[in-house]
């Protein structure tokens, strides 16, 4: 039987670069480049850079 097709989108985790352990989960198309954005981190109470965490350490 044919394998089940992979979904078009994936859920990714954007980690706060303030090293607070705070993160946000987002959904992006599988083929899209990794997400990164400025978002509010409630721990340091500031807008900081959030970068997508790579699963298994591989990034596009």
């Amino acid at each position, binding site marked *: 039987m044919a394998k089940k097709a992979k979904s078009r989108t994936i859920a990714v985790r954007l980690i706060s670069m303030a*090293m607070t352990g705070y993160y946000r989960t987002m959904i992006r198309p599988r083929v899209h*480049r*990794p997400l990164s954005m400025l978002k509010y981190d409630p721990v*340091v109470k500031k807008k900081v850079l959030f970068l997508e965490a790579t699963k298994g350490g591989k990034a596009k």
Partner: protein
Amino acid sequence: MASIPETVGKLPLRLRNFFARYPPQIYSALVAPTPSVPDGEASAEQNLPSPYTPDRDAKGARKPDPEAFSLSQALLHNDPNNQNPFLPRKIFTTGKWVSPRYGLRQQADLVKLAIKYNVEPLLPPGRKSTAFKEARLAERGLRIKGTGIGQKVKGHKWERTMEARLEDRRKAMVEMPEMIRLWKQRGHGRGWRQWPKR
């Protein structure tokens, strides 16, 4: 000490009888020799168990040494010629122990009375005396691991790592403007190389 003879008349009968039977000039904790820490064991801290066990196999391996110097035990002075009525006595010919003249309950009663009338040092040294209890507390801590002399409270992991984590966070926040500038320069993530690991 000068005021003590005046107060003798005011003491309750029970204490007066006790002092009549065991005169303070022979039996009291005041005339007992003050214990001193032997030179070889100047640092009593080394004899105390550590709350940390660096080697897992060593866990529980360090039992307290029964021969080690203990201030509280040293306080329980017993003069063989004038047997302390608060302490048991061993008869070496038979190897048997003889109970103290006054049991622990009676000792406690006497100590409480003596404290009330401010004559506690005149009682013989015993397990119910304030000095003994203080010494034992210092040795054992509050029966909570790590509160004794030379011990540390282990605490939760988040408490132990708090300082390092806050330092990391502080460093990251110092570098944040530069990081954001670089990120904007590299096309808002298009040319970004160092993605964090999950």
